[in-house]
């Protein structure tokens, strides 16, 4: 699983930092490093840009995996610099922002927008593969998620907007149902495409979603 992020427009970051003159920056050594949005290089680049704005960057770190509990340890190692700052700019996905805000009682500002959970098809090409709906249908759709890969999230086959295997919203995007059809046909499982899927349960896990896992079912 990878959290795919994109850096916020610099003007927005600037505006959010407007009232703070001393900033501590944290990046993330995992997903945000892979997406080149919050690795060492990007953190250094941000440091330079903030200094150009006249901010004092009191310190910076790239937490190995900003979403896990080791973040607390990583942060404690740079206590002085953090103490000296009046806000923390987090160049990680929302999970990292969330973690950091648990451990530091100072304003936490996200520098990135978290876009989706996805995979990297080729260097720099990221694609969403799961919408975390809680009712996985991949077993019946040849491993391609219609909820995620179809713009409309259709469960019962393609809409009329498909054109030569492409989607009506963007000619660069494949029609999920054309792909599903081709793969099911190749597997000799086209009968699955004829199966009726009832309306989805949008509340499989009641929002705000949380769960206590007590034993393996």
């Amino acid at each position: 699983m990878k959290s795919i992020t994109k850096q916020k427009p610099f003007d927005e970051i600037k505006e959010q930092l407007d009232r703070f003159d001393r900033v501590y920056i944290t990046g993330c050594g995992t997903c945000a490093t892979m997406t080149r949005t919050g690795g060492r290089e990007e953190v250094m680049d941000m440091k330079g840009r903030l200094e150009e704005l006249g901010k004092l960057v009191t310190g910076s770190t790239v937490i190995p995996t900003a979403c896990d509990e080791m973040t607390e340890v990583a942060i404690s190692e740079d206590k002085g610099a953090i103490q000296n700052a009046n806000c923390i700019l987090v160049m990680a996905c929302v999970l990292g922002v969330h973690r950091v805000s648990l451990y530091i009682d100072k304003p936490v500002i996200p520098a990135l927008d978290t876009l989706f959970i996805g995979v990297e098809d080729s260097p720099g090409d990221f694609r969403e593969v799961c919408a975390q709906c809680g009712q996985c249908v991949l077993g019946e759709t040849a491993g391609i998620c219609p909820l995620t890969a179809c713009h409309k999230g259709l469960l019962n086959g393609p809409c009329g907007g498909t054109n030569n295997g492409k989607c009506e919203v963007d000619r660069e995007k494949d029609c999920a149902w054309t792909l599903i059809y081709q793969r099911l046909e190749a597997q000799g499982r086209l009968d699955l495409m004829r199966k009726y899927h009832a309306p989805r349960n949008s509340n499989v896990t009641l929002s705000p979603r949380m769960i206590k896992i007590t034993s393996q079912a």
Partner: protein
Amino acid sequence: MAPSFREILNSGNFVVTSEIGPPKGTNIEKMLHHIDLLKDKVAALNVTDHQSSVMRFPSLGGCLAIKERGGDPILQMTCRDRNRLALQAELLIAYTRGIRNVLCLTGDAVPVGDHKEAKGVFDLDSVQLLRAIRQMESGKDLGGNDLDGAVEFCAGAIVTPEARPIEPQLIKFEKKVESGAEFFQTQAVYDLDNFAEFMQYARKFPVKILAGIVLLVSARMARYMNENVPGIFVPQYLIDELASAPKGEAVNRGIEIAGQMIATLKKESLCDGVHIMAIGREELVPEIMEVAGLSSSKSQT
């Protein structure tokens, strides 16, 4: 009493429907004019539901106007803008106001329209919406609760005979049939050989097929549709024909093409009827029907 749309569909006569595009705004004069012009000439009139995801006066509002003026409306319902509560609620209003025909569609994607940042709903899809109607007819809502007064609709859907690849579309077509679709209005057809092939397949199913006829008003429009509208293919010879028309005459050539096509479909009994879409030029529908040799009465012979 005038025969219902379902009775007309099952009469064995060649059925003609057309559609009304509601305005963006509260000036409904033109829409009412189109309704008055067409309501007695066709078996039933569709009203589009924010066509191409462009916000407009709603289908339900247009259908009520058709009812008030003595016509028979076909309520177009897309799944784009309403969740299952809102869709069912709208069906309840429609039924109580005498609307008896519904066309179930997925709906165009939000980003192709004029409110690109809006949230697309798609809580149901077209197949599920057809089943929702049949369930409500049994007196239960989608939550399994009793309705105090059920609905009854002649329910239809759409199919795109020119889509490529066609097989996934045909599987969906069959799902719609199994889910209770009684009639289909197709996406625009221009290649009658391809359409005949589709009909040979579709004839196996107990549904009525109305071929979609979209009026071509210029060679430019035809090229645009080929480029931009999924599932529409205007053959080159028709584009040439429109392009060769003298200035200002292309629209008449388009009327001729549409009328002749309808006449051929009827003469060769290729399908059960046609659905004429003039897209903003509804006042030309009677001329198309005239070229096609269709009498101006609700039940064609």
